[in-house]
């Protein structure tokens, strides 16, 4: 019998703990597929964050470390330095990466650590129950911005790709979305490219997924996709910010 679809070897058979309509499952699968296709699994290590994807260490089928909130890039630095013969990625949400872990991500990127950072941006804290994130949009209501995010009081959403793009060392920076089948196919290519560069030890690679959180947004899954397209993409424009492989004389 011919196998036409199966679970990637890089995912365990443990059931995801995500809400219906959540895009974490999609990004997990894209990463796992890319690792399988690039035959990186036996040299792969990952770092799970604190947030909804805290159990990512159970889902990826290779050695994983669970980091303290925001510290994944520092943990990954220690792992990569300890095992330069292996490949390391972190998987982080917006509170993790762009609030409590701002120092760790900026400095890991600035050192040009040979790691890949997957950044899931859904503009809200999911696991703790829908509080305001550093990427929450102006006017957006959350459980800790009940009157809407007031940018005069608390500032504008942090744009992670743009921030990291101000540093010289990173090798590859791209923002993709998981908001339509076409976007997901495109995201897969970008994930694979980042991991390919990781495998080739080219330096720091960063992929941001514009994602949804139907549960905490209080919007049905399909409508959440449209809401994100309409409201998030103007703040978080998709596209490649840097690809050193395209530059001459690298």
């Amino acid at each position, binding site marked *: 019998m011919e196998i036409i679809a199966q679970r990637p070897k890089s995912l*365990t058979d443990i059931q995801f703990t995500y809400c219906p309509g959540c895009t974490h499952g999609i990004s997990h699968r894209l990463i796992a597929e890319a690792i399988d296709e690039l035959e990186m*699994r*036996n*040299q*792969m*290590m990952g*770092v799970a964050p604190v947030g909804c994807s*805290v159990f990512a*260490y*159970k889902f990826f*089928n*290779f*050695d*994983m*470390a*669970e*980091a*303290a909130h925001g*510290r994944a890039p*520092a*943990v*990954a*630095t*220690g*792992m*990569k*330095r*300890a*095992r330069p*013969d*292996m490949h390391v990625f972190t998987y982080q949400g917006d509170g993790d990466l762009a609030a409590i872990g701002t*120092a*760790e991500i*900026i*400095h890991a990127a600035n*050192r040009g650590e040979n790691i890949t950072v997957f950044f899931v941006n859904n503009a809200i804290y999911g696991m703790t129950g829908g509080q305001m994130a550093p990427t929450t949009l102006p006017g957006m209501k959350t459980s800790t911005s009940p009157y809407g995010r007031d940018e005069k009081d608390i500032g504008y959403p942090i744009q992670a790709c743009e921030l990291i793009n101000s540093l010289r060392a990173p090798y590859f920076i791209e923002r993709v979305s998981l908001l339509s089948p076409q976007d997901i196919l495109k995201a897969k290519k970008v994930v694979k490219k980042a991991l390919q560069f990781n495998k080739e030890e080219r330096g720091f690679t960063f992929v941001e997924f514009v994602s949804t959180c139907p549960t905490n947004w209080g919007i049905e899954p399909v409508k959440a996709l449209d809401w994100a397209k309409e409201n998030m993409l103007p703040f978080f424009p998709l596209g490649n910010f840097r690809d050193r492989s395209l530059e001459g004389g690298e």
Partner: protein
Amino acid sequence: MAEKVLMKGNEAVAEAAIRAGCRLYFAYPITPQSELIEYMSRMMPKVDGNFVQAESEIAAINMVYGASGCGRRTMTSSSSPGISLKMEGISYLAGANLPAVIVNVQRGGPGLGDIQPAQGDYFQATKGGGHGDYRLIVLAPSTVQEFADMADLAFDLGDKYRNPVMILSDGLLGQMMEPVEFKPYKTEEELKQLDEQHFDWCMHPNEDEPNHHHHEINSLEIDPLILEQHVIKLGKKYDKITKNEIRYEKYNISDDNEVVVVAFGTAARIAKSAIDELQEAGTSIGMIRPITVWPYPYDAIKNVLHDKVKKVVVCELNLGQMVEDVKLAVNGKIPVEFLGKVGGILFTPDEIKAKILDKQGE
């Protein structure tokens, strides 16, 4: 016999760590431990090791977490305010059963305090500091030689029990120079053995099924019944450490002792001078110097309190922290008196003598 070299404590402990097989060191500069990070930055490239000056003490301890998760000997160091920042990571290391060595070159506190020697971090080191039910093995050196020797011991104990180990020194031991004799460097074969000793649980290169492994470096157990078992298991480990690893020095302990002093680290150095001078004058004073301040030598103290001993004097460079443990050991049998100095100031042997002889203010 190996050659003796004159070295600062900060440099001696760094050299000894490298000789013990540490090839991964992560830290952030802070006085009075900066010679340690500077020494590592010079030496690590020469031994094919890895040195990262981290963006913060928090990042440094998390780099240690990652490197230790890969089964490698790894270390960080700091001084009091920086150690406070590391407490988050230390709790995670303990929760995930990870070995690591943390050097604290204590300075005066609280807050920013000053940069002089102090022992105000005793509570933090021995009673927690980070959150949750955990224990650090805490070694307290009293000479530069002992400081260096403890690097080796700390790595061995860390690996044996899969537990973080702190070396609790202070600005005096970090900054002073004394002759030190080092153990030889680990051979390539020994280093390889060290790296592979943790392959049953650590992150390391994988294979396809059926030999594929999925190791998790983790302190999260969301199910209370599983977390309960996890913490009970930690407790059993701490019991084992307490049973096996208590270390202390008996100084001038005899049947003639009229007073027993308890002091650790730099305070014990000064107390020894006072005890020697009193002995010459015909008064016999003994001392118990805890070398492990966790696990604590309660029984060692209890066992030297024969009928002639009138009181116990505890000398610390703080407002009175270890004295609580001494009181537990003495259990009300005889008076326990305390002599403390704070602000990064040391007491003199004369001050200790006066306390022992009840002659303060004379």
